[in-house]
């Protein structure tokens, strides 16, 4: 089974986000990017599936800051191929134009395309669904396990709905899957193996297909003004704990003498 995993570099949300001058984007010049956490889950599920079927995993990403580290890590984890799409157009903030490029790159090349169920930058839709739409393939999102049937033509997926309810679906290949979480936590790969992958090279740089795609009209970004900002408790941990204990007593969540009310 030939499996593609689409990986995306996203903003690390521990960073302070500053708006660009025209307020339609964030300042990106000094921003650290990291692999989207859902894509990391998709890679793990793909590697598990490939191990079970004797298939191989190719990872595909757009050429964005720090993407080599992500692709080499994927190779060190067991991906067979890594493709970096270069020569990208300027306007790639949101998902629609990204999906247009990726769909042309992936078209007719793979039995199964996996990617994270979402990223933090999907203002105009999630990549997996947009890819499926463009490729005309069946799509299942929020998948928490995927197993290949013996005939190699179908995958059985578990889709997670609200409240932990699971739907089992059988999907004929080729198909696109948006992974919520892998069956197992993503594997650890020692830094020595990543260094070995870097030494071996192996990232294929491919010019990105040129595809016209419309994008949405974002008027501005802004920081939400909360209607109920938290009252911040200051002082060291002991002072905060004392105050919290008093608040819990005021709300009669604990009795005035501690313990559950």
């Amino acid at each position: 089974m030939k499996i593609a995993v689409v990986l995306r570099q996203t903003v690390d949300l521990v960073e302070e986000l500053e708006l660009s001058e025209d307020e339609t984007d964030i300042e990106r010049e000094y921003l650290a990017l990291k692999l989207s956490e859902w894509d990391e889950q998709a890679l793990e599920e793909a590697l598990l599936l490939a191990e079970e079927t004797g298939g191989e995993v190719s990872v595909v990403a757009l050429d964005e800051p720090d993407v080599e580290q992500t692709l080499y890590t994927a190779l060190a984890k067991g991906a067979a191929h890594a493709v970096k799409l270069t020569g990208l157009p300027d306007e790639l903030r949101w998902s629609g134009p990204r999906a247009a490029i990726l769909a042309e790159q992936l078209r007719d090349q793979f039995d199964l395309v996996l990617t994270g169920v979402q990223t933090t930058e999907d203002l105009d839709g999630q990549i997996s669904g947009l890819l499926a739409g463009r490729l005309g393939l069946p799509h299942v999102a929020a998948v928490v396990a995927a197993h290949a049937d013996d005939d190699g033509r179908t995958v059985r997926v578990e889709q997670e709905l609200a409240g932990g309810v699971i739907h089992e679906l059988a999907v004929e290949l080729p198909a696109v899957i948006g992974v919520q979480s892998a069956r197992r936590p993503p594997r650890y790969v020692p830094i020595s193996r990543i260094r070995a992958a870097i030494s071996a090279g192996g990232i294929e740089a491919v010019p990105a297909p040129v595809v016209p795609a419309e994008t949405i009209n974002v008027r501005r970004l802004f920081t939400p003004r909360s209607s109920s900002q938290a009252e911040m408790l200051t002082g060291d941990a002991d002072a905060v704990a004392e105050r919290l204990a008093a608040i819990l007593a005021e709300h009669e969540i604990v009795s005035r003498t501690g313990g559950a009310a």
Partner: protein
Amino acid sequence: MSKDVFVLIEHHDGAVTEATHELLASARSLAAATGGRAVACLLGQDARPLAEGLAADAVLLEQDDALAAFVPEAYVAALAALIATHDPRLLLITNSTVGIDVAAPLAVRSGRPLIAYCEALALEGDTLVATSHVYGGRLRAEIELRGPAIVTVVGAGLAVARGDGEPLPAPAAAAAPAIELVPAPDLSGLRTRFIARREPDDGDVDITREDVLVSVGRGIDGAENIELAQELADALGGAVSGSRPVIDAGWLPKTRQVGKSGKRVKPRLYLACGISGAPEHLEGLAGPELLVAINTDPNAPIFDVADYGTTEDLFDVLPALVEALQTAGA
């Protein structure tokens, strides 16, 4: 393009979801302001009893064996047919698994833009302006919609307003909707097949019934640290719950997950420890009486919804709080 506002009716196990009912109410306010109708799109098999309970101006009911359970491919085909025939201004879908699964392929297929994670729509003349969450809820984006669009909606309901910010009036009491039976498109060639539905194991603590939840996020930093939260939960007579990364990492069982893909909880006290407050997590909070957030990141969105917060380290605050409670009880 018609002026109608369509809503996909999400239903499971014979019941329409609460979020869908809330979305229908917003759709009725919006449709009343734009001169259109709020139209419920109900897909299913023998779903007429559900149609009769919907507070909509009209219900378009597509019935087919292939629509008996949620099969994404079938839903996309059925909705694409409705859009092609009726050309609504908007199709609103809740940002559930169903919404995430269906909206993007449908947007491509119907040639309409998709706006995801929307929390509010404002009517500025003929233009609709959507406000959406982006970057894990840290920022909002305003997007102009001049033509037809598909919108997925986060959180508890969609706020609808005029351009000056004045909320649109609540919809009048709904009369019984006009139910129109619409032939489903040919669904015989689907490549996706529903096999089974599985309910979650219920052998664990039911976090929806707990008065106190000490809830841990990624900041708890390992299964070995759950004990700290458990000690505090024991002192408070509550239980430990967690956000999705904690469950995915296997540090807590699935039954303890709060959020969109977990459970919706309404405890008296929700103590969020090392939880950033991503929109998917906040969707699991049905208005706790008291929300306290402990997070070293002062910009974490959880502080926007918490009553009290601290940026002190949870590894210091949790034991200190256990001790403070014990001291008070000594």
